[in-house]
């Protein structure tokens, strides 16, 4: 391949909402092979808008892999750690896809669209890897890559439901958390799912790429009186960190298991027939994990960042996986792995910041929990 072709292959792709981002003068960065908005104006204001009002995210970079047909249920059961037999039609389930060692290949949300139809929403960076993994392990279900057939918009925040209600006849009150329906929003056919990655109430709308711009504009217009603003990946990251949602590639990866990451609740070891990684995970559960992903704060000034050394008794034991200054709580927060016998709330340790150990301690997570209504 010549250099010009290489350069073209490397150039990030644009989501269907790219013109809207350019128009809004968003700061665009290459992320998982796409030009993605990191922020439109103020990251902190975008974060606050989602906590207090509503924010609209372009998450079209996410991948979709579809399993349909008589072998679809068995296939997804083989791939996913969660029990999709217990997932009703119209319901979604968070799950991990693990390798034989129990390491996390990806974390996914599975939408059951019919008894024999599963749409698996996968991380953007893992689209090709997951498709190859699915094709290798469940070829009989003929996994189909629909990544380019869907755009995805996330409307998140306490005002999300009221805003969306202005644009749809779908009975939103009838859609519970982690449930979805097909319906029209602003005249565009969508999957309307009550899911998200911010810790707030909200919806993710899967639509046709050609409809995405019109839907984006309609939502922003309808939500303007409520203070709806477009939000970038920057706020998405601080929002998810505050509620301790794992980010693939940071907090979890093929070298970590869901049990170590505190995701035991999506691991259904009792599921008939087991699943990829179930033996390794059953063994790990019986023996007890040797390390745990914990939330921490610093007890002195500083901001923990991905990759900073984690010191226990003055010795490096791991690295910070996620870390930021919490925009809502205004305190430094982070996630890291600690030895399981030293991972209890209150455990003191240190984060090395620019060569200096800064005292830290394990705190309960989520760091932030939305006020109950």
């Amino acid at each position, binding site marked *: 391949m010549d250099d010009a072709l290489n350069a073209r292959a490397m150039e990030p792709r644009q989501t269907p909402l790219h013109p809207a981002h350019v128009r809004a003068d968003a700061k665009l960065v290459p992320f998982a092979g796409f030009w993605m908005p990191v922020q439109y104006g*103020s*990251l902190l204001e975008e974060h606050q808008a989602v906590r207090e009002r509503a924010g609209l995210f372009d998450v079209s970079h996410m991948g979709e892999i579809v399993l349909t047909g008589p072998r679809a249920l068995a296939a997804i059961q083989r791939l996913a750690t969660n029990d999709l037999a217990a997932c009703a039609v119209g319901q979604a389930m968070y799950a991990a896809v693990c390798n034989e060692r129990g390491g996390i290949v990806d974390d996914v949300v599975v939408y059951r669209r019919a008894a024999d139809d599963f749409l698996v929403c996968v991380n953007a960076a893992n689209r090709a890897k997951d498709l190859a993994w699915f094709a290798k392990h469940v070829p009989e279900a003929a996994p189909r890559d629909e990544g380019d057939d869907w755009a995805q918009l996330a409307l998140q925040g306490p005002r999300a439901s009221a805003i969306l209600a202005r644009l749809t006849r779908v009975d939103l009150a009838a859609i519970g958390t982690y449930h979805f329906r097909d319906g029209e929003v602003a005249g565009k056919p969508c999957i309307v799912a009550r899911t998200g990655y911010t810790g707030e109430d909200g919806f993710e709308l899967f639509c046709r790429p050609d409809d995405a711009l019109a839907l984006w504009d309609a939502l922003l217009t309808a939500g303007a009186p409520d203070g709806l603003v477009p939000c970038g990946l*920057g706020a998405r990251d601080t929002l998810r960190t505050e509620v301790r949602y794992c980010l693939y590639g940071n907090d979890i990866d093929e070298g970590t298991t869901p049990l170590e990451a505190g995701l035991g609740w999506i691991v259904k070891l009792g599921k008939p027939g087991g699943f990829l990684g179930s033996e390794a995970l059953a063994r790990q559960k019986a023996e007890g994990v040797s390390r745990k992903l914990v939330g921490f704060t610093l007890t002195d*000034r*500083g*901001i923990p*960042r991905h990759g900073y050394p984690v010191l226990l008794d003055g010795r490096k034991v791991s690295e910070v996986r996620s870390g*930021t*200054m919490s*925009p809502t709580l205004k305190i430094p927060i982070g996630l890291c792995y600690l030895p399981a016998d030293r991972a209890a709330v209150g455990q003191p340790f240190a984060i090395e910041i620019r060569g200096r150990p800064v005292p830290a301690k394990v705190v309960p997570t989520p760091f932030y929990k939305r006020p109950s209504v």
Partner: protein
Amino acid sequence: MASYPEELKYTKDHEWARASGSRVTVGITEHAQEQLGEVVYVELPKVGETVTKGEPFGVVESTKAVSELFSPVSGKVVEVNDPLTDSPATINEDPYEEGWMIQVEATQPGDLEDLMNAKAYVEFIEEEAE
């Protein structure tokens, strides 16, 4: 529109220096704060510490980025803008006045001579952008 006061001197690391006799006040430029985004954390030296021209004297951080601060002069820190610790966003709002960071009693009077004037600095950041 970004502004670059004529009376200041500028470094390639995007600090500014304002000399008044041997006292030099130091901060970061409009361009620097724009690039960094909203500052949420600042770490500055204490009064009495020494700083060295071209060496780090502190850190500013936005939610997404960490940026070291490099001293445009050598000398002893005689004043620190401590309120920035609690309101680091001042650096975004008013980088040349309220957002100043440290004042140094310079020991090398010639330190500022090789820094850029406003015109040269504007050309420098335009070149950097290309």
